[in-house]
């Protein structure tokens, strides 16, 4: 039964049936499925399917955007009901898409997954100057600075984060993680971040390791 609703919700997201997402997410909660399961097992999987369809040119951007909007509808219902995992390591994460880049769908999924893992997220949004990211991290005394970019020209900002943290003697005290299509494990190692993740599921593991 619960599987059926989750599959149906995933299908609604993939097909972009935007009006059906909210009621279905509510139905899932009413059926006793917890919010975390909805986010991890349905919404996030659906976006991965959308990504595959995009890569294989079955989908084009309008369909991707419609799917993302549909996912956000369900997320609005599920997120407030998230129960924090009692075993979770608590932590504060400042998350942003760097300046010059407005791609934020992936960042929003990462945010949902990290929230689901019991972390407190300070989401600065997209097109955010490095200075603002570091200042916010200092102000909130965050343990993790997470930055996203999907574009090559904006990769330089990732390096800039490392430089600024080093300058303020915060390297090591605050851990950094980066992600998004333009980044890679090699690039992350090259500029000296503490972590890198391929997708949002891996991001949860990496962040939890960094917090240990």
């Amino acid at each position, binding site marked *: 039964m619960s599987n059926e609703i989750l599959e149906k919700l995933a299908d609604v997201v993939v097909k972009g049936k935007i009006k059906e997402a909210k009621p279905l997410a509510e139905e899932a909660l009413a059926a006793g499925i917890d919010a975390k399961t909805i986010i991890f097992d349905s919404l996030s999987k659906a976006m991965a399917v959308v990504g595959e369809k995009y890569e294989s040119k079955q989908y084009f951007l*309008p369909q991707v955007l419609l799917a993302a909007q549909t996912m956000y509808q369900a997320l609005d219902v599920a997120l407030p009901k998230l129960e924090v995992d009692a075993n979770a390591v608590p932590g504060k994460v400042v998350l942003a898409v760097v300046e010059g880049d407005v791609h934020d769908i992936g960042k929003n999924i990462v945010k949902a997954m990290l929230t689901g893992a019991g972390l407190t997220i300070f989401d600065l949004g997209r097109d955010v100057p490095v200075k603002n990211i570091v200042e916010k991290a200092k102000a909130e005394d965050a343990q993790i600075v997470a930055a996203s970019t999907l574009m090559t*020209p904006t990769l330089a900002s990732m390096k800039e984060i490392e430089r600024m943290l080093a300058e303020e003697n915060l390297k090591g005290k605050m851990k950094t993680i980066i992600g998004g299509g333009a980044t890679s494990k090699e690039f992350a190692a090259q500029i000296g971040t503490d972590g890198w993740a391929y997708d949002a599921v891996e991001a949860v593991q990496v962040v939890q390791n960094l917090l240990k």
Partner: protein
Amino acid sequence: MNGGISTTPKERFIAALKGEKLDRPAVGCVTQSVTVDQMEAVGAFWPEAHSDANQMALLGAAGYEVFGFENARIPFCLTVEAEAFGCTVDLGKVDRTPMVKKHLYAAEDTPVFPEGFLEKGRVKTVIEATKLLKQKYGDKLPIVVGTTGPLTIAGHLVGTENLLLMMITDPEAVHKFIKVAAELEKQYLKALVAAGADVIAMSDPSASTDMLSGEMFDEFAKPYTKIAWEGAEGAIKILHICGDTTILLDHMIDTGADALSIEEKVNPAKAVELVAGRAALVGNMGVVRPLLQGTPEECVQHALEIKAAGFNVVAPGCGLAARVPKANIEAMVKTVKG
């Protein structure tokens, strides 16, 4: 062309864009062409040069003066038309191109045509700079003016994401915005040609295959690109679209473009085969790899491959990043000129 008699860069570049047979391809840049090295060499800098006709003209010829490009090229961004409509633009920094900060309209709004836009703001700057370049370089260099495609302008008006979503949820509204963008573009092109532009290089990044299917291109981009081209009579028309345009080449030719400017994601030999002389080909050196991140040797290899494939103009496949190293551009130019 007269064999033996030395030709000007202008004669070669124009002949190449007309698809004429030459002893070697032309070399230059029809997309954003300026780097920090050029700024330092001619003493004109971003962001000031985006709104100052003299500095814009200086930088427009810097590709020729510093690297030996066989064309002049202005302006250095794709935000001039959006600003004419009233969008807020952040002019960026010495090494960062301008960016539209906020869109103007919601789906249900009726876009307002900015009457008198040719006499205002950076539209006026570009027209003035075109005249200056024509005066100074008119005999020697083709004046290439870059403009923005109607679909991309429409994206600036309502937000690219909104525009793309509306293609599914509200296609009529999409047409409403692209139509007004095409009308402005047509009038703008006409003014540029009158000011001395020899070549119009219109870029429509939001019409790339990363965004749209071929069918969507035909519905939302092609008819409006044709309308815009009506203003370019008397000039050579280059259409630039980003990404992997392999499946889009036929659609691009159908807009009536004389030449196609494409990225390295298309195999150069494949592009020549598919286009089969129906339009000239410009490109398709990778702007990230090899130009920005590669070595001069990689640039030589890539330029040789493009030359051998039969491209008419060897050029960067998309806009140059301001920090592309001098040595890499020099390697490209030298390889083509021999």
